[in-house]
């Protein structure tokens, strides 16, 4: 049978999807020139973190869940402490709230810079890797590396170390930073803010495929702030719920080809989209002034439905994170106490915060000894899995007559623009194209 011949089957298998966090593969089957099946195969073994947490003291949870991901440990810590504080009835004060946003800014900066420059930009400029990109575009890659480093330094200062921070606890922080230490980061962040704006110009000038599905975008929303740690969950379809309603509205499903669960809307079984593009589309008016100006002047009409332009949304958020970090540092006053006192009591609580890759939901039930009886963690990549498969079904038909290498390239580029952290959702990808030859 000839590859791609009408009436025949064709299978493409991507053995190793590259430049993503973690491990998985893609299977594509076409028949008679039409796409018949697409599977995002996640074969990484399940990691069982929710089971590890059962029986552990609630104050151990932030340190354990930080181990789920080396790129976005803060997100896991933030969702965990907010959910546990909801269970315990703890309300940290304004200073702690600001410090947590500052910590999240650090993670957004390092994670977004990594994805934009080292993982995603090579796709749009025709390079196989960041190493190849760096040979021809050293200025851009150096900018990305320095941005990442500045994000890491912020994490290091607030979190005790850049990877798997150790300062976050239920009730606040084990140790609050000194104002003079934060001020030392100010010059770097001023540079980073300019560099982030240059990043928006750089990525907005890239050439993107025409593709704009009808998505339901979902994100956290706050009445006065760009979403990070609170408060409600909204969608482009009019959803507006408390995080406590999350599991009634969104459903996790097992699928045979993936060790990561797929999330869908419980009522209609449809996929949805979380991440920077969703956040920006739903919260554009909450961007800080320079970020909003960068978004307005970059030549993209918002809301934007082209997932490939997620790299621009990510760059705008990079501006926002630098801008907000500077504002938070300028306003910072060392708290009298770095954490609040509270009484341990049995309870159940949940929270949704915005990881760099999108909404991250946690729920915990603890007993009167403060031990975890149940834990539920729904990472953004798992929520996007079904959406990515739906995108591949819509995007790939135009490529089926092309060589397998082109189908594989198109598939990988599309998956990568979601910045999937497969390790978080369970772990890199392989494409298998079945043409029935």
């Amino acid at each position, binding site marked *: 049978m000839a590859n791609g011949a009408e009436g025949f089957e064709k299978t493409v298998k991507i053995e190793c999807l590259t430049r993503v*966090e973690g491990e998985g593969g893609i299977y594509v089957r076409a028949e008679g020139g039409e796409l018949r099946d697409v599977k995002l195969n996640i074969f990484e073994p399940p990691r069982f973190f929710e089971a590890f947490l059962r029986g552990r003291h609630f104050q151990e949870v932030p340190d354990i869940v930080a181990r789920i991901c080396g790129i976005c440990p803060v997100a896991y810590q933030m969702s965990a402490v907010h959910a546990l504080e909801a269970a315990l009835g703890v309300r940290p004060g304004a200073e702690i709230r600001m410090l947590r946003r500052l910590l999240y800014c650090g993670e957004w900066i390092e994670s977004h810079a990594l994805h934009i420059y*080292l993982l995603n930009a090579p796709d749009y400029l025709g390079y196989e890797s*960041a190493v190849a990109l760096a040979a021809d575009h*050293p200025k851009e890659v150096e900018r990305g*590396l320095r941005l990442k480093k500045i994000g*890491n330094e912020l994490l290091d200062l607030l979190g005790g170390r*850049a990877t798997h921070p150790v300062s976050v606890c239920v009730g606040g922080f084990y140790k609050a930073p000194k104002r003079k230490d934060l001020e030392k980061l100010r010059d770097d962040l001023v540079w980073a803010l300019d560099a982030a704006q240059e990043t928006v110009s750089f990525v907005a000038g890239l050439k993107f495929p025409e593709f704009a599905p009808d998505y339901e975008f979902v994100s956290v929303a706050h009445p006065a702030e760009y979403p990070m740690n609170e408060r409600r969950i909204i969608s482009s379809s009019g959803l507006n719920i408390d995080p406590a309603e999350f599991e009634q509205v969104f459903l996790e499903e097992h699928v045979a080809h993936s060790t990561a669960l797929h999330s869908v809307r419980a009522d209609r079984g449809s996929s949805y989209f979380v991440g920077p593009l969703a956040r920006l589309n739903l919260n554009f008016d909450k961007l800080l002034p320079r970020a909003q100006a960068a978004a307005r002047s970059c030549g993209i009409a918002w809301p934007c439905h082209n997932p490939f332009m997620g790299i621009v949304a990510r760059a705008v958020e990079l501006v926002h994170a630098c801008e907000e970090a500077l504002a938070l540092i300028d306003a910072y006053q060392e708290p009298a106490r770095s954490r609040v006192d509270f009484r341990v009591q049995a309870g159940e609580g949940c929270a949704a915060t915005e990881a760099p890759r999108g909404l991250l939901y946690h729920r915990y039930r603890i007993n009167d000894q403060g031990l975890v009886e149940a834990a539920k963690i729904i990472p953004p990549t798992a929520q996007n899995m079904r959406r990515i498969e739906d995108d591949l079904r819509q995007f790939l038909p135009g490529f089926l007559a092309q060589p397998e290498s082109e189908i594989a390239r198109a598939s990988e580029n599309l998956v990568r623009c979601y910045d999937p952290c497969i390790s978080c959702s369970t772990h890199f990808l392989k494409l298998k194209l079945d043409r029935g030859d």
Partner: protein
Amino acid sequence: MASRNGEKVRSGPPRLLVVGCGGALAGDDNVGLEIVHRLQARGDGGCEFLVLAGGGLDLLYAFEKSEIVLFVDAVQSGAPAGTVHLLPLPSPEVVPRGMGRVSSHGWGLVETLRLAHSLAIRVPRLMLLGVELGSVTPGAPRTPRVEAALEAVVECFPELQLALRDSESPLWSGHHSYETLSHGFARMDTEQELLTKKACTKG
């Protein structure tokens, strides 16, 4: 020492960075991390320490601040468990996993060196101190021979540090294996003896 652009010059001994690598929860694979932790706890001066938890990319930042980088890691070469290997990097004897193109989680030293080359970033002199592992069973304690090697490396580290700073040291000449550490670091009477042929087996 010349900077990237060859403009700045600094005096004093070459700056040494000791980088602990490995998996904290995978049996003997944590030996590199533990060596660095113990050296840090002991307060050894004269060098910087780094625990490499965030992937090889972070090494680029470390390169800026060092003239010598010593990686301390568990290795698997088929030698008896606890054997200590000392060799300059890059070396054909160290086989990269080649995962950097695939996943940023697999971004390692080789990818970092290639990126440094692309960006014309100065790469310090690199040395690997590898401890042959016995077991990587998750959650298992270190095996006795690896534990003994760990303790000997920590005990003899000041002498090793001196030798590394000597660019004429035979340490920089190739692969040296210490089948048991008592034949190596523990027997030395002077820093020079560390490197004598009776203390090491050229591999």
